[in-house]
């Protein structure tokens, strides 16, 4: 080595020396013989027994000593006195300086971030699954499934008690959800009765697993090591409670885990409350709607009655068109049938049809005189607060030997069509005024005889005024309806209704349409021989 080279090395060492001593993180310098040459103040704190001159292996943990021997040039990681360090090596002439960076906090933060990421993903997944169903039972199953997969070894979802009965879903990890209604006392599981009433839970470390009643533990789970009870908050009212169970081999619930379980419970509880609300609403709608939906028509005394109904709104089940049937109490009496169209559509019109149907039901004893029924219905509608009016057709049908005798009264409605055996289609000769507008109504009644296989068809303008066809802008019209019916000679009433409805719907295609109602009355084609 030349003098100038020695000089520059010494200079470098001197500079490094001062840098090393001033460094905020621990630095140890190891000579070419493997002994410590120097260590800074920070390193003194980390390696209290290390002194210059000691062999490296005696001064630092084995992982660092090994890294020095292997001298791969790559940074290495290891623990020193319980803290995590990263060590980088740089060469100083013949010596090597190890720079140690404390990354304990960084690693802890990374771990926390990883846990948070997993939890966020889990909550997003849970929300998607929980929001998919508006069915309470299914929401309970999904809650139990998610909780038993991610939060505990088994989970139990319990609804607030109804007359001392608990509705529950159990699920152990990897198993099937089990639904059951049980007469069990929530007080036998510490914290459960409180949670079911929506109050904050008891910390799980206060619950002695041995004090938990057997009925809450899924079959075959084994001994329970720890228990957490979490309320499922609904919208203002408790939706139920979630019981998390861990078998003895697993750790008890940490405070952090309980906080997370509550975050999950908030989502599950909201989904369950929404599902319950939906079921209640749907149930109410169903009950109220029952009387508004056109009835399923049936055969009376061999006479075939069939009806079809299609409200204008896709999502609606009722509208302003209606029909109703009042079967004859005994053979030889007339069966009364009505088809009508209230001005307007949707639920409001449907409510009006309900009123008309109820009124007509009450007026049935007078049905031998159609005009009288019409007059009384008219005054009932005029005296109500409704401003709507309606057009109707009444039909009274009775067997007359092999034939059917019909009395038909048309109150401002489209004419009933009679389909004869030979395919002739006739309009029934009856006319009258609509109801609900004028103080008095007038109408004439036609008597029509149907021979076996012949039909009378009542329909609303939803069919004749249906716009569509291949070109999209043509009315279906009365003539097309008559042409269709001509092909329907001699076929059963259901088939007529289906044919007419199907053609009208195909005609309409994607167009908007009005309410559609069709009723067919057919005289029996074959003698009942049974």
């Amino acid at each position: 080595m030349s003098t100038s080279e020695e000089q520059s090395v010494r200079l470098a060492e001197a500079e490094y020396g001062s840098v090393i001593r001033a460094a905020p993180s621990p630095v140890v310098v190891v000579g070419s013989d493997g002994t410590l040459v120097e260590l800074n103040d920070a390193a003194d704190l980390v390696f209290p027994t290390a002194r210059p001159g000691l062999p490296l292996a005696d001064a630092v943990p084995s992982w660092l000593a090994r890294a020095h021997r292997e001298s791969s040039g790559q940074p290495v990681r290891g623990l020193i006195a319980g803290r995590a360090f990263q060590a980088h090596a740089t060469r100083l002439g013949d010596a090597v300086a190890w720079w140690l960076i404390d990354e304990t906090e960084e690693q802890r933060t990374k771990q926390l971030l990883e846990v948070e990421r997993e939890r966020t993903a889990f909550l997003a997944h849970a929300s998607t699954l929980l929001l998919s169903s508006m069915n309470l039972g299914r929401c309970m199953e999904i809650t139990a499934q998610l909780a038993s997969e991610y939060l505990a070894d088994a989970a139990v979802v319990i609804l607030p008690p109804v007359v001392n009965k608990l509705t529950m879903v159990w699920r152990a990890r990897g198993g099937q959800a089990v639904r059951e209604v049980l007469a069990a006392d929530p007080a036998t599981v510490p914290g459960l009765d409180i949670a079911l009433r929506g109050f904050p839970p008891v910390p799980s470390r206060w619950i002695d697993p041995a004090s938990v009643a057997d009925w809450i533990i899924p079959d075959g789970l084994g001994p329970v090591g720890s228990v957490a009870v979490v309320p499922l908050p609904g919208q203002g009212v408790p939706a139920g409670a979630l019981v998390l169970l861990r078998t003895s081999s697993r750790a008890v619930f940490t405070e952090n885990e309980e906080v997370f379980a509550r975050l999950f419970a908030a989502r599950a509880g909201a989904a369950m409350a929404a599902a319950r609300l939906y079921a209640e609403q749907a149930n109410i709608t169903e009950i109220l709607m029952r009387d508004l939906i056109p009835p399923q028509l049936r055969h009376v005394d061999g006479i075939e009655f069939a009806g079809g109904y299609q409200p204008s709104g896709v999502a609606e089940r009722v509208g302003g068109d209606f029909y109703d049937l009042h079967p004859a109490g005994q053979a030889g009496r007339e069966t009364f049938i009505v088809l009508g169209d209230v001005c307007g559509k949707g639920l409001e019109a449907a409510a009006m049809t309900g009123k008309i149907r109820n009124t007509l039901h009450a007026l049935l004893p007078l049905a031998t005189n159609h005009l009288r029924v019409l007059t009384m219905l008219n005054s009932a509608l005029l005296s109500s607060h409704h401003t709507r009016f309606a057009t109707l057709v009444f039909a009274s049908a009775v067997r007359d030997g092999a034939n059917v005798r019909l009395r038909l009264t048309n109150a401002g409605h489209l004419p009933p069509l009679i389909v004869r055996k030979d395919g002739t289609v006739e309009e029934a000769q009856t006319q009258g005024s609509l109801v609900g507008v004028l103080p008095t109504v007038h109408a004439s009644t036609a008597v029509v005889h149907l021979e076996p296989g012949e039909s009378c068809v009542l329909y609303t303008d939803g069919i004749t005024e249906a716009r569509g066809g291949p070109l999209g802008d043509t009315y279906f019209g009365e003539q097309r309806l008559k042409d269709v019916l001509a092909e329907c000679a001699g076929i059963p009433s259901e088939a007529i209704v289906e044919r007419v409805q199907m053609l009208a719907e195909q005609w309409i295609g994607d167009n908007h349409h009005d309410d559609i109602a069709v009723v067919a009355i057919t005289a029996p084609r074959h003698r009942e021989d049974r």
Partner: protein
Amino acid sequence: MTHAVSADRVDALWSAVVAGDEYAAAGIVFAALDGGIPAEDVLLDVVAPVQAKVGLEWAANRISVAQEHAATAINDRVIAAMAHHPVARVEPRLGRVIVACIDGEWHALPARLLAEVLRLRGWRVDFLGAKVPVQHLISHLHLTGPDAVALSSSIATRLPTAHATITACQAAGVPVLAGGAAFGVDGRYARLLGANAWSPDARGAADLLADGLPQLTAEAHQPIDDLPHLADQEYTMVARTARSLVKQTMADLAERLPVMREYTSQQLDRTGEDIAHIVDFLATALYTDSLELFTGFLRWTSEILAARGVSGRFLLPTLDVLAVQLKDFTRASRFIKEACDDLGRALDEA
């Protein structure tokens, strides 16, 4: 049950059904039940073949559409009567299944047969009937929380609706079993549209359900996820402008074929309907990206026309004028050209 006995009963039921004699029809079916034939076999080996024959006889122009409806109505009443026979009374012991037809699907009988078979096998069945709007179906699913939905569709043009329905059921957390002619003889369209299972017949469907449909745990998916080709918008454009396409095609055809100017309004209606069908099937073929769906429809139409004494050659100029209007659509143009070639070959062979 031997095949011969079954065939005799099918013939007898067929005669009763076309005669519109529901009492005779019910008598045949009750005799079979009283004779110890299992109700499922009566439904699937006697009633179902008769119903299949209804369709074949119509295609061959041996019965009218009205007779087809009449026969179906009688068959339907026979099934209803059967449900009251003591051997057909089964207490539900399995889960709950919803059986429904896709919106716009009028042919309810195959679904009705499935519903009855499932009921006989011990399922609790909700039969929602023909043309069920998606909204009704989904609210029913939410209310009842069934184990599965069985969806029936016989007309291929309902496939886009079927797809939306399948996706909606799955989004509500219920697996879907698809069935019916619309999904293809091998169920290819059921798979394409992401149904959880498919079965060619009611027995197969009942067996599938007995084994348990796959549970849904996957995230809800959108229709476009299954059919990336929809990104070219050709389906949307053709479906949205279907009516004006038909109108223009009618006008262009009338210029090419002077005979059309003498058509009666009824003949014009029929021609318009035929063209509307072609456009609907083209749109569905674009939706499913299936050329075969379009060519298959045109071959079938030409056979139906032939049975009614009309030459299928009339379809070729229709396709021509349609092609002119859709010349800017790559996939549609290719489908029409290939379908023309295929139909030409089929007509030459015939």
